[in-house]
């Protein structure tokens, strides 16, 4: 424990700004992955254990597109669109067959695809690690805000994630499609009886979830190394986020992810040897005091 370092940081604006943005970056990427997970669970009622693979594919698609075109915007688009298509195919061909099945069956299918997707990546891109590299537009000196260091690329990253959160939140609560999706989550039989194609809704939601994870992967690609299996550690952390925030809640995923990011960034100062432990400890505290998560609804 190094509480002096933590106290020293909390009293200095430079350190506060740097560590807070560092927490926001970790949190926002985590949010993009976790929100897809929570969305899929909320509507489809399946826990998508293969969700990390979409994060991985997003990163690889972005890298390949960037190498081919040299355009960062196209790379992000490729990461998001590619995983959306992949998500749609995966849901229609495989997941849609196990909706009524036992949860163990769903788990097995997902886990099988974790292994299959990892091997597919290994076959296409090779087993060795890759790096996409930072686009030259972002290879600039970091900004200094109140003495704290903030890299411009991370501002973009936080911005994109924030826009995604707002669009998602407003879209689901205000738009017609959002209302249909929420209705399908409540009572798929009735929605279907009203002449709405629920299969399309399910496929669309899965594609949206995959796309968000893919976007996270694409945004992370310039700063994280790409390996087969890279989705796994992200998946575990997004599970912690959804458990803390409450399964099925978008606001919960946002708050959960940001809390986790801040725990990491300030925890590494005050409790350098217990940063990981802090995350789990926090999850335990939430689970004990509010078993449905911070924003989870009581089970019907």
């Amino acid at each position, binding site marked *: 424990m190094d509480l002096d370092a933590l106290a020293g940081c909390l009293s200095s604006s430079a350190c506060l700004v740097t560590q807070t943005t560092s927490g926001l970056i970790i949190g926002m990427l985590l949010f993009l992955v976790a929100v897809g997970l929570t969305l899929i669970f909320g509507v489809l009622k399946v826990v998508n254990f293969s969700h990390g693979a979409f994060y991985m594919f997003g990163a690889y698609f972005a890298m390949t597109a960037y190498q081919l075109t040299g355009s960062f915007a196209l790379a992000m688009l490729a990461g998001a669109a590619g995983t959306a298509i992949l998500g749609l195919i995966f849901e229609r061909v495989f997941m849609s067959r196990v909706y009524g099945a036992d949860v163990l069956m769903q788990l097995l299918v997902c886990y099988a695809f974790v292994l299959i997707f990892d091997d597919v990546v290994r076959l296409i891109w090779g*087993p060795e*690690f890759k790096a996409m590299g930072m686009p030259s537009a972002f290879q600039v000196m970091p900004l200094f805000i109140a003495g704290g260091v903030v890299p411009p690329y991370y501002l973009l990253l936080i911005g994109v994630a924030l826009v995604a959160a707002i669009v998602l939140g407003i879209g689901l609560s205000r738009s017609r499609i959002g209302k249909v999706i929420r209705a399908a989550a409540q009572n798929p039989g009735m929605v279907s009886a009203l002449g709405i194609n629920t299969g399309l809704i399910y496929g669309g939601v899965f594609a949206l979830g995959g796309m968000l994870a893919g976007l996270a992967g694409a945004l992370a690609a310039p700063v994280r190394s790409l390996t087969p*299996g890279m989705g796994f550690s992200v998946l575990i952390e997004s599970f912690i986020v959804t458990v803390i925030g409450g399964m099925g809640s978008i606001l919960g995923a946002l708050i959960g992810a940001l809390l986790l990011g801040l725990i*990491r960034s300030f*925890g590494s100062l005050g409790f*350098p040897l217990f*940063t990981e432990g802090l995350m789990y400890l926090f999850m335990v505290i939430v689970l004990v005091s509010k078993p449905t998560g911070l924003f989870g609804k009581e089970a019907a």
Partner: protein
Amino acid sequence: MTRTRTPGISRRSTLALMGAGAMTFAAPWVARAQAKTIKIGMPTILSGRVAQLGTSSRNAVMLEVEKVNVAGGLAGRQIEMVIRDSKGQPQEAARVARELVNTDGCELLIDAEASSGAFAVHEVARDLGVFCIHTNSETSSLTADPKQHIPNAFRTARQGVHDSIIGGSYAAAIAKTKGLKKWATCSPDYAYGRDTTAEFTLYLKRFAPEVEIISESWPKLFQPDYTEVVTKILQAKPQALYSCLWGGDLTSYIDQANIYAMFGQMEVFAVNMADYTALTVVKNLPKGIHSGNRYIKTFPTTPENAAWGDAYKAKYNEYPTNWSWENATAIMLMAEASKKANSADGKKIAEALKGLTIKCPFGADGTVTMRGDDHTLVGYAIGWGTTIPQEPYVPEVKAGDWKTIFELEAEWKKSKGYT
């Protein structure tokens, strides 16, 4: 329509049984006919996160075995390599090693495992008495600790303590000229990271006593994001940073530290940077990172080393790794020892190998020696230099001095109670 089978043995299975029987009786004869070849078993890591290193070990071995076979093999017997995947798991490495000897009839072993697996294979070698060369484990105690010593096992890998002595003295010299007193460390949180960092700082402080470690970070192995570690180090404002992160972890770290402009704010010493697997992957390699040599074809600066690196690249379309040269050296030493003993027998090769010096592209002076008293490789090229973002990546490597290594290594062994 369903077919009914009459009970008892069908004609087809009778034939199969007879065939199998014939094979069984013929087998000893086949084996005798092939006794001219000698099988060398090799467990290594061919799948998982470090598969690339295992593959590069296999490539290097095959490159050298081809040459030995063209020149007549081991005492007239052609070498046949039997290479199996251990998946990087110690228990699997031990099982594979045992199977290679007992079932596949391998007479010699090359243990191309990382440290975790090497200690497991070492116990198999102790148990079976089979000749074994450890090619990749850098953990010093594998050969330095007399408890580990067995007459039939050797090591051709570099040794952790050698690297630390040279790294510590190199870093101390720079610390003195540039006045770097405040240091931070950032290494992966497992045995290798902890031990290597401790040994490096031990020798750094020995050569530059004014150095002070003001911040330590221990990210998890294979952690995807280092942002909080990067910003923590920036807060501490050290003048220099030491790291033994490696592979994809190191490249992630560099990309993430780069956008915080960390490399302009402190001198960085990353012992595992100068390896082609990392150098060729990082897109925006900062200039001036200090690194130890792992394998680089421009150090030692000899035509032999350059030719070896180019030959490897021509054959496999990528540059060799640190594990490559260590495995190639094993085959070179075995071939030479077998020639000296005029035998392919493991015991005789082991006897001939003790204290053997051979010409080798990876030697500091063009030769390497298998030290007789602790069965570990000495005299290999070892040095530190700074990186540039394109080939040759590390234009000038300052060679380490083996006299200093021997002195301090003897002292270190005494302090550990090994001598």
